[in-house]
């Protein structure tokens, strides 16, 4: 009851037409983030230490003596040189236990399930048939990255991309204001309908929350920001609109500086 009274008291304060909803439509990363240089180096170093401190591989347990696979394993992993008292070792005498030099990490080479040095044709033929084929992962950079196509959803797979549009004046996030004639519409619906209007209906998106995540207060208007993710489909401009999918750094170049500073903390760095 009380709240309703409050509602009435406030409702006439601001004109509905001054309220607008801005959509932060993002494409989430498809692949894992690029590791910074220091982290990468640190992990590699730790990995080396870890391998150095690893116990000797119990090959007799995995490869039974006398079997074919054991023979293949033996061919790949040569025995280290034993501590021969008649030989001089300028870099220290080896300490062999269970066919491993205790001073170093043990490098175990496992027999491959596929044949090495096969011609590409054979490989292609085997690619679809053989379960034990060699796995070659796709490249982390795509064609869109190479061609510099900023309107593609396939660019910068490791980063979060945000949709910005240009209506002839400047680049900005899509913004939709309430028409004074129509009834008051929730902010997220306003953004959704606006998006369908400018980008076509074939966009599968996920609205994170109905709650606005930020407010940009200007003299005569209030812009509420709504966050959502595009999951599939694509943005097809319905009018003569230019659009781009940009990362945070690129946004700082294209957006107005003060505007970017306002929304900077809402944008994802990876």
């Amino acid at each position, binding site marked *: 009851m009380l709240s309703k009274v409050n509602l009435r008291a406030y409702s006439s304060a601001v004109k509905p037409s001054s309220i607008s909803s801005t959509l932060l439509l993002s494409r989430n990363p498809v692949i894992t983030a690029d590791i910074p240089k220091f982290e990468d180096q640190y992990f590699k170093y730790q990995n080396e230490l870890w391998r150095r401190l690893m116990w000797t591989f119990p090959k007799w347990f995995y490869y039974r003596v006398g079997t074919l696979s054991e023979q293949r394993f033996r061919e790949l992993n040569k025995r280290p*040189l034993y501590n*021969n008292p*008649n*030989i*001089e*070792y*300028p*870099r220290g005498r080896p300490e062999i236990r269970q066919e491993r030099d205790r001073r170093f990490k043990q490098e175990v080479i496992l027999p491959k399930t596929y044949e090495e040095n096969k011609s590409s044709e054979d490989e292609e033929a085997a690619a679809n048939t053989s379960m034990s084929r060699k796995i070659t992962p796709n490249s982390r950079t795509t064609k869109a990255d190479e061609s510099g196509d900023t309107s593609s959803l396939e660019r910068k797979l490791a980063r979060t991309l945000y949709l910005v549009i240009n209506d002839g004046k400047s680049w900005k996030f899509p913004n939709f204001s309430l028409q004074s004639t129509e009834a008051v519409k929730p902010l997220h619906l306003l953004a959704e309908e606006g998006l369908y209007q400018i980008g076509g209906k074939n966009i599968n998106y996920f609205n994170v929350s109905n709650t606005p995540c930020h407010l940009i207060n200007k003299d005569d208007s209030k812009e509420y920001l709504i966050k959502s993710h595009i999951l599939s489909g694509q943005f097809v401009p319905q009018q003569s609109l230019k659009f781009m999918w940009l990362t945070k750094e690129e946004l700082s170049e294209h957006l107005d500086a003060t505007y970017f500073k306002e929304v900077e903390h809402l944008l994802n760095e990876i």
Partner: protein
Amino acid sequence: MLHRCQGGMQRLCEEGLKRLGSVKAITQIRTATKRTSGSKTNKNDSAGRRLGPKAYEGHFVNPGQIIMRQRGTVVHPGENVGIGKDHTIFALEPGYVRFYYNPFHPLRKYVGVALKKSLTLPTPHFAPRIRRFGYEEILDSSEAEKEESRMSRKEYLQRPKLEKARQESEYQDEQRLNKLVETFKEKFDLGLSESELNTVSDRFLKVCKLFSVGSSVEEAANQVTSDHILSLRLQNTNGSLSKEDMEKQVDAYLKLVNKFDGSVSVDANGNPCEKLSFSEKQSRCNEVLKTLEETYSNRVLSDEDKTTVYSLINNPLLFTKEEQTTLLDKYLPPVLPISVKDSIVEDIDLENVPNDINIVKLFDESTGTIKTVGRKKQAYSDLSKISASSY
């Protein structure tokens, strides 16, 4: 009579409890393990164990007197009391029994012995402890002398050995002293009188001893000076030296020391040597190191070269013993490293090997291969032989 006595005891106990104030009244309960009167279930009866407090609050107790008999620690031992293996609490000091609580263990009851009647327990945490000395002075002089010369069996058995060691060291000191006086007379032109020479030698010996247990030369010299001045001062306070004499002697000693320390120093072996200034020592060290680095490193050394290197390094004036071993290991290693190219002969006829070459098998870690090469016998050096030949 007995009755009255008991009554008195009870009164005392009550009085003690009143004084205790905050402490809960400890009522005398007979906490026997078995009831004394017979019962149906306890056929195998045993007598009461006569537990409970044997001395009450405020009672005077002597050392060893039992204060409490109990099963388990009903009451914990506090100050000046001990606890037996059956948790019997007994006094360690003569004094007055106090039952109390300890703020550090709020759930425990304690009993202690206060050394004075006026004292309460626990003693305040930051206050000094009150302690009893308890030893009587022996006033009879002959008795006192006898007691003083009494020694433990261990000390008694060790005495001849210690005495022998003392004499031995005294003898050695004397020998060294004589030798030092000779050295100072012959090798160093100090211009000192006989008595001064003796003082100086004595001082030098002391400095050497301190130097050998790890103090620096300067530190040791200061220590010896201070010891000497202190002994003069003490002679003055004892009355065997007048004040003027003392001051005169101190001045003379300081002057002598100044003169002596300016010209003589201790080398790494603990022998007297010419004093070098820091910069001079540095430059000479560098010179030696430079020669070693430039002419005698990374190549096969002949026997003469080895002797030269050894004598260069074995210089107690310039290098400490640690530095000497490090340098010897560096420039005269047991075997030269394989990185020294001219110590290795690659093409070798295994059928007839020259006399001055050893055949060795080398494992190359980077390639993982074994190489058979010849190494010149000169590449091997034996320090004991070199040191023998250098003298």
